[in-house]
Structures are given as C-alpha cells and as structure tokens.
C-alpha cells in the first residue's frame, strides 16, 4: 500500500471524527449525549475505555452545561480538551461557551449542526451554530467528512496557537451519519503536526495564578479589544496551520474558504457545510452544459474572512448566499457579512434560504437557485427559496383566509401577505 492508500477507510463520519480527535491525543473528553452528536463521543469513549486512546479521561456528564464546564476546568487545568454537542445542547451550554472564549481556553468542540426547537426537530440546519456567532469562538464549517476529519485535527492547533476555543461545525446526520471513504492521517503525521499540548497558562501549584477575574468598566473594553485582536490573528493562523497540515498530510481540507470553479464565473454561490458537496455536483452538470457557476465554500465563519472573500468574489456581480438559518425579524445571517466584504464593489448579493430543519437540499435545489439567479429573480435580499406553499396555504386559508403563490417567496411577498390580512 502506498501512503495514500494507508489509512483510507470506508467509515461513518462520526467515527472518522472520533478517530481524528483521538489522533490529536486529547487529555480530557467530556460529553452529554444529543443527536446527532452521539456517535462521535460514543466512539471516543470506546477508544478511551478500550485503551486505544491512552492518558485520557472520558467523563460522562449530566448535561451539556456541565460538559462545557468540565471542558473549561480541564482546559484551564492544562489538558487538551474536546467535547461535542448539537442544537439544544449547544444552547444549554451557552453560558459556558462565552465563558470559555472569555478565558481564552483552547477547547475544541464539534457541533453536529441541528435545528433548534421549538418545534423540536433533530435534523440538520445551521440555526444552532450560527446562534453562537457572537460567542467569541472560532467557527469552522466542514463541507465533507474528510474536511471534518482534517479540520478537527487542525482545530486543536489553531485553538492552541490563537488562545481561543474552536467550534468545528459539521452538518448533523448529513455528515455525521454518512459512510464515506476517509483518509485518516497517521499518528506520526499528527504528532509531527500537533505536539503534546503546552498550555500558555494553566492552573499549576508551581505557579499560582487567579483566572477569571472580575473586570470593571476600567478595563472591560480593552479586554474585548484584545479578544478581537486574537480573532483577527486567527485569520492568519488558520491559513498557516492549513498550509502546514496540507504539507504534512497531503490533505486539501481547511483554509478560510475554498473556491470551486470560480475563475470567470458570472454567478457565485456562497455555501457553508455539506451543501457544498451537493452544489459541486450540480454545478459540474451545469458546467457540462456550458453554464459556468462558481462556488465559494465558506470554511471560517468566525473569524469572518472579509478580505479573502472579497478577493474570491472578485469581479463577479451576482452572488447568492445559500443559508440554512436566518435571523428572526431580520434576514439572512451570512449575507450581511458578504455585503460588508464587497462594499463598494457593486456586487448584487442575496440570500436563498433553504434546508431548514433537515429539508434536503438536492442538486435540483441548487440548479433552481442558479436558474433563479441567472434569471434575475433574486431582486430582493432575502428569499424563502425552498418553501412549500401548499403546506402553508392549508393553514393560512383556514386561519386568515389568504393563500400564497407557489415557488420561492421573496421577503416582500411575506410582508404583503401580512398587510393584506391587516387591511
């Protein structure tokens, strides 16, 4: 077997991530079960209990709040720390999430992205991870299980270099439960890439420090400024670490963003996560028909790579952001960031909202988005692209005496339907 064949396995994404985590030799892993994160931590637990992952403590805690808290403790205690969660669990640990970043603890956490209830829903969208946009964590999105495997290993190095925690966001079920051929790096490669953890500060009787002080208005702004500096520094670190990792392993994963078929494209789709894979296939088909559409896979949502994105968009005037979450009472979450990146470039940027709560985004969905965009139908910033008016109308007709047309619904149509009833 040559080097490329070595470590190639047909396995579930969760197992791949678990193996990647184990290769990073964490000291403490803690978790509370929540779908669709379960298979990841089950596997890590198995490695610890079975002895494959040595010198590692695996804690079955009683809640996500405690999972994050144990992670805070173990990271502050000087151990490389990993946990994983999703959806409600992520929200249940929110207080700890902010605390971990404020303390600068380099925890790595998988978010097996899943919708937030109510209504309770166990399937994938990005409302959980994007809800933590302002938490001070780095948020790295994975477009494939191979990307997830590699990004997890890189995440430890990025976190420890920057001094901030990293969320590795991979789509629940779509990735976590998918079986794919995965190339796992060897332990030697990982060890060469990621040496034994050397905490920059930790709780050590030899050098006592007080962590987590109360900071008053005198210095709070300055603390935040320094946190923001770390985020900015992280942009650079992510690129350097990716480069280093790729050199050692030959991987193509990671980075701030990844461009596919972008050269000379007059339409570019900006996509996070597993939809990128679906979109690539769809775009390949369009390409075969002579229709050139580019895809920008946004890997790093936080820090947001404004400059890299601006460069990636370049002269292209038509950009659609495919979003799997939105902000209630506002519009898309990612598109406004893209607007900022493209300020003054005359780029038309709109959001195609789809794939909520596990509604599948098929190749046809992507092709429809492309067709819609190329037809100039994204006149508005925000469009409910993948919505079933038949389902809506069954309810609205009875309750409010109105119906909505078939097909994508622009924000203005939603507004008009409200006004109609009020009138």
């Amino acid at each position: 077997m040559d080097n490329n064949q070595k470590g190639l396995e047909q396995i579930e994404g969760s197992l791949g991530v678990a193996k990647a985590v184990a290769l990073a030799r964490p000291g403490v892993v803690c978790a509370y079960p929540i779908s669709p994160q379960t298979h990841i931590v089950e596997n890590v637990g198995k490695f610890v209990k079975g002895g494959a992952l040595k010198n590692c403590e695996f804690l079955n805690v009683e809640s996500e709040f405690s999972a994050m808290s144990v992670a805070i403790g173990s990271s502050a205690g000087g151990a490389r720390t990993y946990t994983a969660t999703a959806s409600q669990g992520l929200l249940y640990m929110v207080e700890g999430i902010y605390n971990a970043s404020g303390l600068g603890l380099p925890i790595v956490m998988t978010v097996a992205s899943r919708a937030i209830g109510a209504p309770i829903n166990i399937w994938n969208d990005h409302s959980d991870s994007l809800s933590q946009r302002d938490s001070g964590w780095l948020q790295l999105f994975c477009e494939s299980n191979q990307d997830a495997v590699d990004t997890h290993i890189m995440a430890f190095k990025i976190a420890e270099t920057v001094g901030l925690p990293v969320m590795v966001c991979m789509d629940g079920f779509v990735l976590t439960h998918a079986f794919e051929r995965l190339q796992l790096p060897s332990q030697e490669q990982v060890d060469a890439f990621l040496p034994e953890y050397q905490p920059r500060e930790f709780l050590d009787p030899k050098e006592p420090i007080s962590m987590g002080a109360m900071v008053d208005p005198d210095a709070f702004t300055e603390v935040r400024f320094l946190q923001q500096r770390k985020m900015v520094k992280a942009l650079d670190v992510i690129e350097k670490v990716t480069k280093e990792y790729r050199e050692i392993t030959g991987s193509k994963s990671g980075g701030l963003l990844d461009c596919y078929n972008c050269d000379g494209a007059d339409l570019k789709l900006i996509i996070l996560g597993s939809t990128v894979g679906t979109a690539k296939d769809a775009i390949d088909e369009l390409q075969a028909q002579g229709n050139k559409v580019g895809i920008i896979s946004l890997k790093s949502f936080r820090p947001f790579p404004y400059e890299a994105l601006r460069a990636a968009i370049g002269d292209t005037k038509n950009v659609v952001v495919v979003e799997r979450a939105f902000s209630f009472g506002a519009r898309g979450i990612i598109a406004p960031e893209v607007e900022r990146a493209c300020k003054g470039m005359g780029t038309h940027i709109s959001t195609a909202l789809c794939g909520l709560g596990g509604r599948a985004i098929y190749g046809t969905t992507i092709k429809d988005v492309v067709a819609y965009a190329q037809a100039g139908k994204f006149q508005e910033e925000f469009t409910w692209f993948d919505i079933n008016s038949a389902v809506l109308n069954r309810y609205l007709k009875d309750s409010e005496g109105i119906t909505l047309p078939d097909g994508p619904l622009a924000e203005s149509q939603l507004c008009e339907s409200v006004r109609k009833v009020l009138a």
Partner: protein
Amino acid sequence: MMTKPFATTLDPATSLANHTGSWRTLRPVNVFKIPPCNKQCPAGENIQQWLYYAAEGDYERAWRILTENNPFPACMGRVCYHTCETKCNRGFLDESVGINSVERFLGDYALDHKLSFQKPTRETGKKVLVIGAGPAGLSAAYHLRRFGHTVHIVEQGEEPGGMMRYGIPVYRLPRSILDAEIDRIKDMGVTIECGRKVDDIIAEKQNGKYDAVVLGVGAGLSANVNIPQGDANHILTALDVLKEIETKGDIQIARRVAVYGGGNTAVDVARSLRRIGAEPIIVYRRNRDKMPASEEEMDDAIKEGIQVKWLSTIAGATKDSLKIEKMKLDETGYPQPTGEFEELPADAVILAAGQNCDLEPVKKIEGIKFEKDSVNVDSSSLMTDVPGIFAAGDMIKGDRTVTAAIGMGKHAARGVNAYLKGAKYERAAKHDEAKFEDMHPWYYSDAPKTVRPMLELARRTSTFDEVQHGLTEENAVFEAQRCLSCGNCMECDNCYGVCPDSAINKLGPGKGYEFNYDYCKGCGVCAQECPCGHIKMVPEKI
C-alpha cells in the same frame, strides 16, 4: 513562565496593594487590665503571669516572676490566706484557680532544685538597717538587697521569722521550709543579728552609719482582755502558747481550754492544742459570718473536732468554769449583751483577742508620729515623719497578715531606694480590673479545681505533721492551666485566627500579636472573640 492574558488572569496576592485599613471606623487596641487576683494580692504578686509560665512547665521562670514581689513562695503557699482565690474570675465558671497551691508547688520546686536569688549586679554602697526579722523586715531586706544596698537586720528573737516562726503552728508551716527561704535571703548577703533588742534606734542608726532604717516591729504582744477571775483559773495569751509549742514542742496545760477570740490566731491555737491532746473550745462574741478567721482554716478546725461557742463573751472565770454571757447582733452587726448567762466548764482560758506591737523604742524617736496605735507613714513610700526612717508590717495601718507584711516590706524597700536616690517613691496607678463580664467564657473548658490531697483527719489531730500536702507536678500544671488570664494575653491565637482579613500578625512565643492597621477593617471579631478581654475597639480618629 506562563503567558497571562490581560486583566482576566491575575497574579497571586496582588490584593496586598489594596489597603483596606482605610475602611476602618473602629480600631482594635490591646487593653491591659489587672486581673482580680493580682489586684487583691497584698504582696502584689503578678499571679497571672507566673501561672502563665507554670502552665507551660517553665517552673523556674514562674518562680522568678513570683519572687519579684514575694521572696517566700514556699511559706506563702502554706500560710497565705489566699484572698486572691476568692476574687478569681474562674469562680464564675466552676471553681477558683488554686493559686495558693501552685504557689506552694513553685516554692517547693525552687527549694528542691536549690534555686537561689540573683545577687545584685551592682553595690550601691548604701547601708540600711532593718529592725525585726519578721515577714515585713525580711521582705524589705530582700528587696533592698535586690536594689544593691547593704542590709543588716537586728532581731529581738532567738531566730528570724517573727510571727511566721512564733505565731504560726508547725502543722501549717514546717520550720525547715521557713529556714530555707530565710537562708536564701541571707545568701544574697543580708546579715541577720538575732537575740538583741534595739532600744535606741537613732543611736543604732548613727553608730552603724546607716543611711536609712526600716522598722518591722511585729505585733508580738497579745492584747489583754480583762476577765474577772477567781484565784485559780489559768489564763494565758495565744502568742505565749504558740511560742511555747514552737520552742518546746509541747505545753503543760489543762484538758478543757477555752480559746477566746475569733481570728486566725484563735484558730491556730485551738488546732495546736488539739494536737497535744487538749479539748479546746473557741468562744467568740459574734457568729460565723462575722468571724475574721479564714473560712478554710475554720472548716478544717471544725473537721478536727474543735467546738465553737458563738455569740458568747466570757464574763468571768472561776477555777473550773467560765461564766458566759450570750450576745446578739444589732443591725450593724455589732454584738450586744443580752443579760443571759450560762456556765461553761473550762480549766484554762487562752486569750486570742488580738495582738499589739512593742512600740516603746519607736516612741523614743524624735518627730515620729502615731495614729492611734499605728506609726504614721506616707501611704506610698511608707516613710515615717522622720526622714530616712520607714515602717512596715503590723506596726502601721493595714491588714495584719504575713502576706500584707511582705507587701509592705516591698513598698518600704522601694521607698528607701527612692529616698537614697533623693527621690520620692510614688506607686504606679493600677490598671482597671479585668471583670468577668469583659471575658469570653465560652472558650474556657470545664475543669474543676484539683482537690488537694489531705491528710487523714484522724492523723492530723494527733501530730504536728503538715496538714495540707502539695500538688503533684501534674496537678500543679493542671491548676495553672485553669487560669483564665483575665485581661491579659495568654497567646491563644484567637485574634490571629478569627480575623477575616488576616490583619493580625503573630510575633512568636512570648511576644504576642500586633494589629496590621494597613488591612484591619475594624470589624471587631478579634475583640469579641478574645477570651481574656484583652482587646477593645476604640473610635478611629478621622
């Protein structure tokens, strides 16, 4: 070195930069109150302090502190009426500390270990004459010698000791003890000349070129009581009886003896007579409550079978009986005759109705003044109206106890010392008394007073063996450790421990503590929790 983030991670103990002492409106300060035992002690012993060291087992240091005020701990541990114990604050908790028995233990310890007083480091060259080698004279001589003066005592009796030898029965004070403690004073260089009465004090002073004189003439004369008597009833004085028993070990006396009086001497005589086979009965004109004798001594006397006829005076005596008049107490507590009489069979009467001093030679000193039967002295220095002549003991106003005499001897010595330097001795003002209310009794554990081993009652009525035995070392330490250390630090570490701000510094054994006002917020927990009442909160000057 760790790379610490800004503000959220802090270096250890950096709070020391924050001087919380500025919050304070009240400040803790140490107060030094005089313990009631010390205040009460006629000899002015620093009892709390010597108990402190006794409790630690440092007996020599305890003894040295004790003997700074009193050179007779072995004697005093036996004959002192220890009124200190009646004032002891521990009495409010359980029972008073057995101060006297610890004193005796220390005194005996010093004798057993042949501890001697330190000789003065410097001779002043001044000569002081002391007249009388009783407790006052010996105490004065001891303290004068400590000051470095040359001291010579002239004593009328055959041996030194005064009333300690001729007034106190052997069963209370073995003479070997007395001799040893007097010898220790002699070892300092004090000379004692016995068997000579000084009739002309001024001439003695001039001839001997003495710079000062301390008069320590004891009350060696029994007061006379006029009892109309028939021809044959045997009437003796208490001092004569005690002296004869002391010198001859026995006395020829009838079986049924009435001892007339209610003081300690009456009890001493009665108990002594009991030991040589007589059947003494004490006749006293008032009741038990009004009796001046030590309660403890009286208890022992009654236990030994001595009877008492209360509220009675002897109106007349015949050969073998006494005419007793019954008395009653008026509202002021004085006995008044009732006109009722009874007969009491008795072959002899011993008068124990008080003693007087032989002041004839003193009266010859020109310029000396008297108040009633006492020599007039300055209340601080105890100097008489004649410069350079001082007086102490029974001959001046005050309690006529050995302990009081020792205390007076000390003050007279200090008076002489000041006089010899051309100054006047003023006694330092005493601190406020440490009251039980000032203390925090919670902290003291419960422990009853050790009962001194007693001789069997049967045995002690037939011999002059010492009645009370001393404490074992274990018991003495136990007893010393019962001291509450009223008003004075005992280094219990409470203030140091209970300060929420760690604002009290511990200075090490014997050195106590200091308040760290940089950080003390003035909460007052230290003052509240000090067992001894040694800390108080005073308003901060703002």
